[in-house]
């Protein structure tokens, strides 16, 4: 079968150009990618948190409460849910199963699947079956019992499903526009969560400051790295030397690590350029310019300057730039 394109309308690809895709498909592709990544982050945050609480042992109720609230603020999940259960039960259930909470894992997966269903013909069967499978798994009758039995295993399954989905995306989809949009979605979401994890966790840590002795402090710092899936690679870089400034530097500026903000921005720049090139355009697009500038900024930044400016202020600036880039992307491609 030959490609179904009209040569008078479209120049087929001696440069490897992709077929143009429907704006609505691009939009759904983007949101599918974001929600899958978001579900993974929520699962990881909760999993790390439960582990952390076991490690640090008894905390004062106030401190424990405060720790749980960082989960809500990291995911911008609104107010603390009410009820008579202990805070850990309330928040982990709320962030896992509550369909009325748009940040809960169930909501993220349902929305990712809704978007995938709307572009069922654009994605591979493997991707669809993976997403549909995890949806049936988490909405099925046994989900509650599985969760009760081992929250750790439960969250691990969600994370693995997301990883599997990303692997399938890379290996079963042509690396054309469709794929670029999934990449943009993934890295935008990752920057968003990573920046907020750094903000909220360092905020709590600095407030607690003197109250914490060294072992507990280390456990908390490990928690920050784990929340960003970065503990092992950090150790390889800096040995087991846990130090706040280095950790912040690693998570923001590390060159080759796929969880650092700098790496994500590089990928955003590359993917937006990919979209533009596959449309046969020669001038950098609006989102591409934004991400390109941000990439240069991060490349030449140093942690001392960042700390001098203020960690939160710096991260807020990055978040602003990425949301501008995201808006430019929607304007250029989705809202035709």
């Amino acid at each position, binding site marked *: 079968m030959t490609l*179904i394109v009209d040569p008078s309308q479209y120049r087929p690809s001696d440069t490897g150009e992709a077929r143009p895709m429907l704006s609505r498909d691009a939009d759904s592709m983007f949101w599918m990618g974001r929600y899958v990544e978001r579900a993974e982050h929520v699962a990881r945050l909760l999993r790390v948190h439960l582990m952390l609480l076991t490690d640090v042992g008894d905390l004062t109720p106030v401190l424990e409460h405060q720790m749980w609230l960082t989960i809500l603020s990291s995911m911008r999940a609104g107010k603390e849910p009410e009820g008579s259960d202990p805070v850990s039960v309330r928040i982990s259930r709320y962030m896992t199963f509550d369909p009325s909470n748009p940040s809960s894992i169930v909501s993220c997966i349902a929305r990712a699947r809704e978007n995938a269903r709307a572009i*069922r013909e654009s994605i591979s069967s493997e991707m669809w079956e993976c997403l549909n499978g995890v949806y049936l798994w988490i909405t099925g009758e046994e989900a509650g019992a599985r969760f009760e039995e081992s929250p750790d295993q439960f969250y691990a399954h969600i994370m693995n499903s997301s990883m599997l989905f990303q692997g399938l995306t890379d290996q079963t989809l042509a690396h054309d526009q469709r794929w670029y949009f999934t990449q943009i979605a993934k890295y935008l979401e990752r920057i968003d969560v990573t920046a907020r994890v750094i903000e909220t966790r360092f905020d709590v840590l600095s407030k607690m400051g003197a109250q914490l002795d060294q072992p507990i402090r280390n456990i908390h710092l490990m928690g920050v790295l784990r929340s960003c899936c970065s503990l092992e690679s950090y150790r390889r870089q800096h040995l087991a030397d846990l130090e706040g400034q280095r950790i912040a530097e690693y998570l923001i500026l590390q060159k080759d690590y796929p969880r650092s903000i700098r790496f994500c921005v590089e990928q955003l720049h590359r993917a937006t350029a990919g979209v533009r090139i596959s449309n046969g355009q020669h001038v950098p697009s609006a989102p591409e310019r934004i991400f390109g500038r941000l990439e240069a900024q991060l490349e030449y930044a140093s942690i001392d300057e960042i700390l001098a400016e203020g960690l939160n202020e710096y991260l807020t600036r990055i978040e602003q730039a990425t949301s501008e880039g995201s808006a430019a992307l929607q304007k250029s491609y989705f809202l*035709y």
Partner: protein
Amino acid sequence: MFEQYHVGNVFDEMFIEPGKPRRHYAPIVQRLSDMDIDAFERRRRMADVLFRNQGITFTVYSDKRGVEKIFPFDLVPRIIPADEWELLERGLTQRITALNLFCQDIYHEQRILREKIIDPYLIYAAKSFRREMIGVHVPKNVYIHICGTDLVRGIDGKYYVLEDNGRTPSGVSYVLENRAVMKRVFPAVFNQYRVRAIEDYPYNLLHTMRYVAPVHAIDPTCVILTPGIYNSAYFEHTFLARQMGVDLVEGQDLVVENGFVYMRTTAGLRRVDVIYRRLDDDFLDPLCFREDSVLGVAGLMNAYRVGNVALVNAVGTGVADDKAIYPFVPDMIRFYLSQEPILENVPTYICAREEDRKYVLENLDKLVVKSTNESGGYGMLMGHQATESQREEFREKILKEPRDFIAQPVVELSQHPSFCDGTNVISGDGSRCFEGRRVDLRPYILYGEKVIVMPGGLTRVALRRGSLVVNSSQGGGSKDTWVLEDEEQS
């Protein structure tokens, strides 16, 4: 497994009499008899899981939120021998040819009306007759590109045409998916037979679409137009788009400019040449038909009329599958083709005719009354099962709007063994066993450069005992349908 099977007094597809299968069913009966019932049930569950994981579902609107359900799949295949199929193929080809000539005639010269074969009143009173199409040239004079004809078998074992679905027949995706699942669940049984392949349907469909592309489109862009994710047949729309590799668009993705249709892409507007629309005429273009439609595309009909875009199927084909026009299809075949019909119709009484109406009203308790404006098993009276007040209600309706009704004698559909295990199919006494359930057959016919009848089709099953209604909206299931290769040729 078939020891207790009850053949009864209708035509049974599998058994001539208890314990004596028809020749083409003998190998599978042997195979199933060697299998224990638990093993069979495990396979049935496996099939269900495959359907669910793949999201092969349709949406039912029982409450405000649509619920996704899998289409119940009945594991025992229906088998059609080569000689029987050969007859069906010829009959269906003849029928779609006549129906296309009829559409062409009715929107142009209307010879069939002038020669008084069909009463003009029946045409002009049909809601599906589109005045907007009079005098419009459609590419290659093809109106019905895709047809899904419903066939049933009577007590005599003869095939009858119950309905020609010439608008947007659905179900073909289930035919292909049923086959794929069957091959995975029952590979050994499948390999015992030489079953004709159906997997090239998407390829043929794409060619049928390209055949009617406007002449200016050298390499035409084909798309499928869907009402959207909440439509009950949405799975099928995505399935066909995926299988053909074309884009699946919604009304909001298309725009008409200077008489051409374009789709909105990330690289700007792209011209669209052929649209396989899974949207009723009524919703296609708010400027031409229902103005409250948000599913369609404003200006689409103008682009269509000037020939800048092709629609598959054409607008106005509903007139050919209107239930009050259906009784005339054999006459059409004689009139346009000078041939005798190969497939027979079910005898039909047209309530708009005085003598027919009189007979219908006198025999309401023996007939099936159907509304000419509804489909999918809605708006029907099964006279022999209805209560006195239901019959009274229909009597009044018929007297008020005779054109809206036809009546047919009850066709005792043929039956086929179905596996009952309490989930999909419930047996009469609650046990796990095979029981006969009524079936029909919907083959799919493509009319492009040549007529292609897909060797197979959708066998729909009424899962309730004794029920004659096979529609999926009324609790029907489906079977894989095997058409066998001709043994002498192979």
